[in-house]
């Protein structure tokens, strides 16, 4: 699959929505739908994506789209997929239909974690996608369990005593893998064809799949809007956001690293320096930067070991 072929496919997500200029969610959703290229039913948890693309009575979606509350997109899509399976068995539906559930990091890692976990455990044939912009962006940049260590958010302020979030990011990929579902991956829009390939792999596999995608947010991360892809590149090249896949067959995990910057691995400060949410770390608070770097290095070595690199 290359970009020319992808661009020849019919678009099922239109412009004219109200996502901010430069929003990563628009880029990612377009990529996901182009990659699937067959009948699809999309569900979306309340989030920027939901609010900005399906503002009644208007919609950016040309495929079926189901609005959900903040916490229950996985439950809804479980029900929809189950109904489909029954109707298919009774020969009332002939077509092959794919199911995708989008949720933000708040909607998937926090309030929607139990509906997500339940859906994975029951084995629904749904692709779950987390659009991880590392905070509750839609309601004004509140911290989530996916907000990284040291980041400013409206609920993790910078002052004398506190310097941004004081906990590391929840490892949602490992949580998904622990359910022993057939396919889990992490992707970034900066590595576009890798992302497209992961989506095609996910929908070709029978059973639940999960892709965790980094979704740059201009007002939440505070960078220049033209840098949305560039900031993700810094995340990937610093191994803050490694690209990998985990296949599980008969309970055996197979980890695969998709990109290794090797001796071009960048220090995390290059990623932090692009974003105003880390402004307090650009020149000061070196102990926090060191702590972030040490955490990345430890996780990166661990990941390479799992992938036998």
């Amino acid at each position, binding site marked *: 699959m290359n970009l020319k072929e992808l661009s020849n496919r019919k678009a099922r997500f239109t412009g004219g929505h109200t996502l901010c200029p430069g929003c990563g969610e628009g880029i990612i959703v377009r990529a996901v739908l182009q990659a699937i290229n067959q009948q699809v039913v999309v569900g979306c948890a309340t989030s920027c994506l939901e609010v900005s693309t399906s503002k009644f009575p208007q919609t950016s979606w040309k495929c079926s789209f189901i609005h959900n509350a903040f916490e229950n997109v996985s439950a809804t899509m479980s029900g929809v997929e189950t109904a489909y399976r029954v109707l298919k068995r009774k020969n009332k539906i002939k077509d092959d239909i794919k199911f995708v559930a989008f949720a933000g990091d708040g909607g998937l890692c926090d309030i929607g974690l139990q509906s997500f976990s339940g859906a994975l455990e029951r084995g629904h044939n749904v692709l779950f996608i987390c659009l991880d912009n590392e905070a509750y962006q839609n309601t004004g940049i509140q911290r989530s369990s996916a907000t990284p260590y040291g980041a400013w958010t409206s609920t993790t302020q910078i002052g004398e005593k506190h310097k941004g979030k004081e906990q590391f990011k929840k490892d949602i990929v490992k949580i998904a893998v622990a359910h022993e579902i057939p396919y889990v991956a992490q992707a970034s829009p900066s590595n576009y064809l890798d992302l497209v390939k992961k989506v095609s792999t996910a929908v070709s596999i029978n059973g639940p799949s999960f892709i965790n995608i980094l979704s740059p947010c201009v007002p939440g991360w505070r960078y220049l809007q*033209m840098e949305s892809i560039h900031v993700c590149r810094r995340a990937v090249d610093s191994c803050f956001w490694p690209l990998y896949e985990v296949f599980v067959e008969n309970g055996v995990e197979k980890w695969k690293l998709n990109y290794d910057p090797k001796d071009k691995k960048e220090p995390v400060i290059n990623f932090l320096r692009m974003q105003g949410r880390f402004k307090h770390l650009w020149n000061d608070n070196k102990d926090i930067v060191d702590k972030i770097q040490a955490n990345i290095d430890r996780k990166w070595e661990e990941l390479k070991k799992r992938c036998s690199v």
Partner: protein
Amino acid sequence: MQNLKKWKELEDAGNILDKGNNEENDVSGWRSFRPIHIREKCIDCMICWSVCPDNAVISGDGKFIKFDYTKCKGCLICLNECPVNAIRSEKEK
């Protein structure tokens, strides 16, 4: 914005049956800078098409055709990602 229905005329469950009707919207007022395509330099790699959040790059037959200025919000990611500088920008008046 299309004519709004009265609440009694709405479809059940708040359904929107007019799929993709955001396509009618003009968001050009969001834009401070306008991307401009330079045909002579373009190699039709379609990177700009892929990175646009607003579906504002119109392609055909695997080639860049034009910007849809009713959808472009002027983020200039396309300009920043174009590998051969075939996009320049101009300030909107």
